[in-house]
C-alpha cells in the first residue's frame, strides 16, 4: 500500500517537473527564436545565471520574506479557525461577524497597506499583520463552510449519547471540517507570500519585494525575474508542505 502511494507520488513529482521543464523550454526557445530583447523578456538561461550571480543577496531576501509570510500565515490560520469555531459555537454572532469579515476582506489588502505602514512602520510587523489579515479570511471562510457540512442528524445522534457542545465540536464538527480547512490553508499559502512581497514593495528594509522594487528602478529585468522565481519557489515549497500534510491526513482517514 505505502509503496504504491510512494511510487504514485514519485510519478506526480516527476510529471510536475516535466511540465515545468516544458514551459522553460518553450520560454527559452521563443526568446531565442524571436530574438526578444531583455527588456521584453529575458531568457531562462540568463535568469538562472543571474540567480547564481546574486545568490547571496537573493537568499538573504528570501529568508526575510519567508519569515514574514510564515509568521503571518500561522497567525492568520489561528485567527481564522478560532473565529470560525467561535461563530459556529455562538450562532447569534454569525451574521454580524460574517458581514464584518466580508467587509474587511472586500477591501484589497493593498488598500490597507498605506494605513498599516503608517501605523506599524516599514519593519517586519506591518508585513506580518498584512499577511495575517489576508490569510485569516480565507481560512475563516473555508472553516465555516466545513463546520456547516456536518448534518443535523449526526449531531442529534451524538447529542443523544449525552455529548456536550465541546464534544460535538471536537469529535464531529472539526474532523468533518478538516478537509475544507486544510484546502483553505493550502490556497492561502500562496497568497501569504504575495501579500508579503507586495507590502515590501511599498516600503521595507529588505525582502524579495524590496529587491524587485529596486531592480525595476535600476532597469535590471534579469534580477526582477530572478527574485520572482525565488518567490515562486518559496510559495511552491510552502504549498507542497501543506499538500503533504493534507495527503497524510486523508490517507490516515
Amino acid at each position: 500500500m505505502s509503496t504504491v502511494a510512494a511510487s504514485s507520488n514519485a510519478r506526480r513529482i516527476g510529471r510536475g517537473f516535466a511540465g515545468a521543464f516544458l514551459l522553460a523550454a518553450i520560454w527559452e526557445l521563443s526568446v531565442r527564436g524571436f530574438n526578444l530583447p531583455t527588456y521584453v523578456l529575458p531568457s531562462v538561461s540568463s535568469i538562472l545565471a543571474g540567480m547564481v550571480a546574486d545568490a547571496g543577496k537573493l537568499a538573504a531576501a528570501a529568508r526575510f520574506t519567508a519569515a514574514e509570510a510564515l509568521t503571518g500565515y500561522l497567525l492568520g490560520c489561528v485567527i481564522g479557525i478560532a473565529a470560525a469555531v467561535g461563530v459556529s459555537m455562538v450562532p447569534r454572532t454569525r451574521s454580524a461577524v460574517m458581514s464584518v469579515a466580508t467587509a474587511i476582506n472586500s477591501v484589497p489588502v493593498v488598500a490597507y497597506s498605506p494605513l498599516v505602514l503608517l501605523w506599524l512602520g516599514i519593519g517586519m510587523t506591518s508585513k506580518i499583520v498584512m499577511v495575517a489579515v489576508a490569510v485569516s479570511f480565507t481560512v475563516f471562510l473555508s472553516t465555516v463552510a466545513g463546520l456547516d457540512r456536518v448534518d443535523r442528524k449526526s449531531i442529534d445522534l451524538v447529542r443523544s449519547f449525552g455529548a456536550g457542545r465541546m464534544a460535538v465540536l471536537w469529535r464531529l464538527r472539526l474532523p468533518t471540517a478538516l478537509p475544507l480547512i486544510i484546502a483553505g490553508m493550502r490556497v492561502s499559502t500562496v497568497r501569504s507570500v504575495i501579500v508579503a512581497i507586495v507590502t515590501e514593495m511599498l516600503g521595507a528594509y529588505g525582502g524579495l519585494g524590496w529587491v524587485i522594487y529596486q531592480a525595476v528602478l535600476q532597469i535590471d529585468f534579469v534580477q526582477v525575474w530572478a527574485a520572482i522565481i525565488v518567490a515562486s519557489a518559496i510559495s511552491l515549497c510552502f504549498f507542497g508542505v501543506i499538500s503533504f500534510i493534507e495527503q497524510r491526513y486523508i490517507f490516515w482517514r
Partner: protein
Amino acid sequence: MSLSGLSGASLSAVKAGRFVSILKSLIWIAAFLLVVELIVVALGIRPYYLPRPSAIAAAFLATPQAYLLSMWRTLLETIIGFVAGSLFGVAMGVLFHRWTILRELFFPLFVVSQTIPVIAFGAVVVLWFGNTLFAKAVIAFYISFLPVTVNALLGFATVDPRQVALMRSFGAKEGQILRRLYLPAALPQIFVALKLASSLSLIGAIVGEWFGDTTGLGVLLLQAMYNENVVGIWVTIVASACLGIGLYGAVSEAERRIVFWGAEQ
C-alpha cells in the same frame, strides 16, 4: 389556488423579515459610526491615524461623481474578470479531474502562476493588453481562477465512484454524468471558492488600475496614498468595501438559490 396563495403570503413575510434585518444592520452600522466619531473626537486622534467618519462622508460628497464613476469602472472590470475566472476555473477543474496526466503536468504550473506578484509586471501587462478595461479584467481573471479549480477538484473527489459506475451501467454519457453527478456534488465547494474569487477579482481589478489609468478605485487609492490624503484613502476603502460586500452578497444569494441541497443542514 390556496397553495399558491399560501406561498405568496409566506414569501411576502420572508421579504418583510429580510427588510427588518437589513434595517437592523443599517441601524447597527449607524450606531457604530457614531461611536467611532465620538471616540475620535473625545480622544483627539489625529486625522492621519483615523479620520472622523463624518470627514470621510464629506470627502465623498465633495466629488460624488468622481467616486461613483470609479466604482462603476472597477465593478465592470471585476465582474468580467470574475465571470471569466469562475468559468475557466471550473473548466480546468473538469479537465484536471478527467485527465490525471494533464493535472499532474500542469496543476503545479497553475500554482506557480499564482505565486507571481502581478504588480511586478506592470509593463508586461501594458505591452500585452494595452491600457484597456480588458487589461484590468485579465488581471482580475488571473488572480481569481485558482481557488475555483482547487475547490472544484475537491468537490469532484467526494463523488462516490460506485455511483459513477452505476450511471455508466445505465448508459449515461460523460456529459450527463458531469451535469447530474459531479457538478451537483461539487457545487457547495465551488461556491466557497466563488466567494473568495469575488474578492480576489476585486483586488485584481484595483491592482490592475495601478498600471496607468485615469479612473477606478485603484487610481484614487494611489493618488490618496502618495498625496498623504488619509481621508481619501478611507473613502476608497469604504467604496471598495461596498463593492466587495455587494459581490459577496450576490454570490451568496446565488448559492442560496442554486445549492439548496448543500446549505442549511
